[in-house]
C-alpha cells in the first residue's frame, strides 16, 4: 500500500481534520513521567504538525487508549516510569491495541534497547530527542497499515483459504484447525477482520493499526474473560470460536478473538522462554524451588499450543541474590491466570550468574512459570539435553568414574551431541558450576547424584522418567514429576529447576522428536544425574543467549559470549511444535557446548564449587539409587 493509499484510508476513516495530509495530523500519545521532557517532546511533536496528547502516567495512557479506540496512531513512551514499567506498557499496548509504540529513554544501553525491541517497540529513541528524529516516526504507522492493507487485500482478492493458509504458515503455528476456521469466515469484512488477518500475517511488531475497521479494545475485563476462557479450554484446545463462546461477550467477532489469541500466545511464549531459562538457570545452580518446576511444567504445557516464539532479551538484573528468594516466593508458583505480570527476559548474556538468576526471579513473578508446568509433560523430553551435557561434562572432567556411564548408554543419535558437548564440557561445567556458588547446592546433590547416576540410567531411558528426573531435582516440586517417572523415580539434577523446566519444555513439545534428536536428552540411555546436570547447564546456558527464538535456529547462533557468567536463561523455550523443539534442543545443546567450551564461565567462580562438583561426581560411584526414587530429596 502506498503512502497515498494510506492517506486515503486515513481520510476515509474520517473524523480528524488535517489527516488528509498524512503524516500531518498524525495522532500521537506521549507518555513520560518527566514533565520537562514531556513538555519539550510535546512541543517538538507539535512542530512536526502532529496531533499530540500527553500524559505523565502510564495508567492514564492506557485508560485513554482503551477508552478512545482508534483515536491514536502512535504511542511514544518513556522507559522508566514510576507507576508502570515502560516495557510493560509497551506490551499491553501491543497486545490490546496493536498500535506502534516508540520507546524513549535517556538510557541507551544495548540491553535496554534490545529489551525494548524484543518487547515489540517499533523504535527506540534516546533523549534528548531531536526534531529530525520525530519527523520520520510516521513511517511506523504507515508500515503497519501497509501490512494490514496488504493482508486484507490479499485475502479479499484471492482465495481465502489459500491466503489464510499462507499467512498461517508464515506464522508457523500449529493450529491448523483454527486457521481453517478463519479461512472459512474470511468473507466477513467487518470488525476485526482485517486486523485479525494482518495480525496473523504480520510479525510481532506489525500489528494492524488500520483505521478501517472498528478496533476492539481489549480491556482488562475483556482480557480477563479471554484468559479465563483460554484456561478453561486448555491452551491446546483454545480455539477462537470456543473462546468466543465461553467469553459470551457481545460485539466481538471470532476474528477479534483469533487475533488476540495469537498475540497472547506470543506473549506467553516469551514469558515461558524467560521462565524456562530462568528456571533452568536456577535449577542449574541448585534452585530451591521444586515448585518452580511444577509451575514451569504447567506453563510449558500452555506453550505447546502457542505459536511463534518471540525472543525476549534478558533484563539487566542487578540483584544477584534474589533469585532464589524470588523463586521461592509463592507468587512465583501460582498460575496467575496466564497473564504474565512481568515480561520475562531471557536475552542477553549476563555477566554473572547472579544476574541471570535474577531473571529467574523475575520469571517467578510472571505467569510463565505457571506455564512451565511439568504436569503436562508426560513426554520426557527434558532429560535429553541435560543428560547429554551432563555426560559430556562428566566425561570431560576427571570426575567420578560414573561419568562414563551416561555416555555409553546414550543412544547413537545422542552421541553426536554428546560428542559435541564433550569437547567443551570439562571446564565449562566446572566453571559454570562454580559460578553459582550460591545457587548451586551441590551438597544436596551429592547424595542424590550417586543414586541417580547408577540407578537412573536405565530408567531415564524412558521418556517419562526423563522428564520426571529433571523435575525431581528440585525436590518438593518434583512430585508432579514423579508421576512421570517410571522406574527411575528421580534423577537428581543439579539444576533441578532448570532441568525440570527443560524437561517440561521438552516433554510438552515433542517428546518423541527429542529422543530422536538425542541432542542432549538421553532417553533410553544413561540419564544419570550428571547428564541432566549437564543438560541443564547447557540449557541454561543456551538460555542466556536469547536463544529462545533461536532455538529453531542453528546452534551456531548461540554466541559463546553469552555464556559468560550470564547463563541468564535456560532457554528451553516451549516450542510449539515438535520439530521446533528438536531444533531447540539441539540448539541448546550446541549452546551448551559452546558454553562449556568457553572458559569464561569461570569468571567469578569460586574454587569451592569446583570441589563440590567434584565431590558430587565422586559420590556417584557409591550411589545406590534409592534416594531418588521417591524424589523426595530437595536441592538446596
Amino acid at each position, binding site marked *: 500500500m502506498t503512502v497515498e493509499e494510506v492517506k486515503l484510508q486515513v481520510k476515509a476513516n474520517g473524523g480528524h481534520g488535517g489527516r488528509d495530509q498524512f503524516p500531518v495530523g498524525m495522532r500521537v500519545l506521549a507518555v513520560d*513521567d*518527566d*514533565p*520537562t*521532557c514531556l*513538555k*519539550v*517532546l510535546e*512541543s*517538538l511533536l507539535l*512542530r512536526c504538525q502532529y496531533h499530540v496528547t500527553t500524559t505523565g502516567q502510564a495508567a492514564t495512557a492506557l485508560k485513554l487508549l482503551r477508552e478512545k479506540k482508534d483515536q491514536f496512531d502512535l504511542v511514544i513512551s*518513556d522507559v*522508566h516510569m514510576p507507576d508502570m514499567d515502560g516495557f510493560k506498557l509497551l506490551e499491553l499496548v501491543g497486545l490490546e491495541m496493536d498500535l506502534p509504540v516508540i520507546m524513549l*529513554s*535517556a*538510557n541507551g544501553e544495548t540491553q535496554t534497547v534490545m529489551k525494548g525491541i524484543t518487547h515489540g517497540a517499533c523504535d527506540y529513541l534516546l*533523549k*534528548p530527542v*531531536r*526534531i529530525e528524529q520525530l519527523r520520520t516516526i510516521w513511517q511506523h504507522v504507515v508500515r503497519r497499515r501497509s501490512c494490514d492493507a496488504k493482508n486484507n487485500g490479499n485475502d479479499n482478492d484471492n482465495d481465502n483459504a489459500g491466503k489464510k493458509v499462507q499467512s498461517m504458515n508464515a506464522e508457523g503455528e500449529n493450529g491448523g484447525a483454527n486457521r481453517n476456521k478463519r479461512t472459512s469466515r474470511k468473507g466477513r469484512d467487518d470488525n476485526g477482520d482485517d486486523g485479525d488477518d494482518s495480525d496473523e500475517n504480520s510479525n510481532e511488531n506489525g500489528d494492524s493499526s488500520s483505521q478501517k475497521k472498528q478496533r476492539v479494545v481489549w480491556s482488562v475485563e475483556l482480557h480477563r474473560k479471554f484468559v479465563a476462557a483460554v484456561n478453561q479450554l486448555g491452551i491446546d484446545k483454545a480455539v477462537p470460536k470456543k473462546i468466543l463462546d465461553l467469553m459470551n461477550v457481545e460485539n466481538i467477532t471470532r476474528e477479534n478473538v483469533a487475533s488476540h489469541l495469537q498475540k497472547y500466545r506470543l506473549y506467553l511464549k516469551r514469558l515461558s522462554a524467560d521462565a524456562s531459562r530462568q528456571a533452568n538457570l536456577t535449577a542449574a545452580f541448585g534452585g530451591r524451588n521444586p515448585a518452580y518446576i511444577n509451575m514451569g511444567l504447567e506453563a510449558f504445557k500452555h506453550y505447546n499450543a502457542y505459536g511463534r516464539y518471540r525472543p525476549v532479551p534478558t533484563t539487566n538484573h*542487578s*540483584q544477584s541474590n534474589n533469585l532464589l528468594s524470588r523463586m521461592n516466593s509463592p507468587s512465583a508458583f501460582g498460575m496467575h491466570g496466564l497473564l504474565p505480570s512481568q515480561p520475562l527476559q531471557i536475552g542477553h548474556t549476563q555477566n554473572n550468574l547472579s544476574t541471570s538468576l535474577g531473571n529467574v526471579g523475575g520469571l517467578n513473578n510472571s505467569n510463565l512459570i505457571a506455564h512451565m508446568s511439568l504436569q503436562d509433560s508426560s513426554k520426557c523430553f527434558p532429560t535429553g539435553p541435560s543428560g547429554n551435557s551432563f555426560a559430556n561434562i562428566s566425561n570431560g572432567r576427571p570426575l567420578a568414574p560414573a561419568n562414563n556411564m551416561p555416555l555409553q548408554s546414550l543412544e547413537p543419535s545422542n552421541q553426536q551431541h554428546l560428542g559435541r558437548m564433550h569437547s567443551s564440557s570439562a571446564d565449562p561445567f566446572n566453571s559454570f558450576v562454580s559460578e553459582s556458588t550460591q545457587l548451586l547446592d551441590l551438597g544436596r546433590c551429592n547424595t542424590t547424584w550417586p543414586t541417580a547416576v547408577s540407578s537412573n540410567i536405565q530408567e531415564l531411558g524412558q521418556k517419562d522418567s526423563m522428564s520426571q528426573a529433571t523435575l525431581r531435582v528440585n525436590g518438593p516440586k518434583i512430585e508432579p514429576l514423579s508421576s512421570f517417572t517410571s522406574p527411575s523415580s528421580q534423577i537428581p539434577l543439579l539444576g533441578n529447576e532448570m532441568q525440570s523446566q527443560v524437561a517440561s519444555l521438552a516433554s510438552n513439545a515433542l517428546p518423541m522428536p527429542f529422543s530422536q534428536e538425542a541432542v542432549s536428552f538421553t532417553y533410553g540411555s544413561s540419564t544419570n544425574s550428571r547428564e541432566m546436570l549437564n543438560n541443564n547447564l547447557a540449557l541454561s546456558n543456551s538460555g542466556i543467549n536469547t536463544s529462545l527464538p533461536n532455538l529453531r535456529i542453528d546452534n551456531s547462533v548461540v554466541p559463546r559470549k553469552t555464556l559468560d557468567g550470564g547463563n541468564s536463561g535456560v532457554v528451553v523455550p516451549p516450542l510449539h511444535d515438535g520439530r521446533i523443539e528438536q531444533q531447540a534442543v539441539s540448539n541448546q545443546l550446541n549452546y551448551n557446548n559452546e558454553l562449556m567450551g568457553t572458559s569464561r564461565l569461570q569468571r567469578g567462580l569460586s574454587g569451592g564449587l569446583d570441589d563440590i562438583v567434584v565431590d558430587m561426581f565422586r559420590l556417584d560411584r557409591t550411589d545406590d539409587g534409592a534416594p531418588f526414587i521417591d524424589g523426595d530429596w530437595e536441592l538446596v
Partner: protein
Amino acid sequence: MQDANLRYPEIGISEVSLTFGGKIGYLDEQFCQVEDLQDEASPNFAEEVVTLFFKDSARLMSNIELALEKYPKDFNRWDAYMQQLKGSCSSIGASRMKCEFMSFRDYCGQGNVEGCMRSFQKVKREHTVLRQKLETYFQLLRQAGPAGAATRPVM
C-alpha cells in the same frame, strides 16, 4: 558547546567554561533546539521549560539526597534516580550536569560510596550555577525585549 557559549555572552557561559577550563559549556545544542521551539504561539516556551526543569529537578535531587542517606549503598536505587535526573537535564541541554552523571554512574558501578557522594555534590553545584545563569539570561532577554531577541544569532 562552542556556539552556545558564544551565543549567550550575556550570561557568561563562555567565560565560565574558560574559567573552569572545561570544554563543555553549561548548555549544549539541545538548549538551542528548545529555544527554537519558541514561536508566536508559545513566546516564552524556553523560559517555561527551564522553570519546569528547575522545579522538577529540585524535587528529584532532594529524592536522591534522601536516598543517599536512607538507603546506604543502594547503588541501583541511586543510579535509577540519577537516570531520571539525567533525562531531564538532557531535555534542556544541561551539558555539564550531564557529564557529572556519567561519573556518578561509574562510581555506582564501582561501589564507591564516597565517589557517589562527591559526584552528587558536584551535580548539585552545577545545578545551582546553571539556575543562576539561566535566571540572569532570561532576565536579560526580557529587558532587551524584542530587540534583544533579534540580536541573537539566528540558529
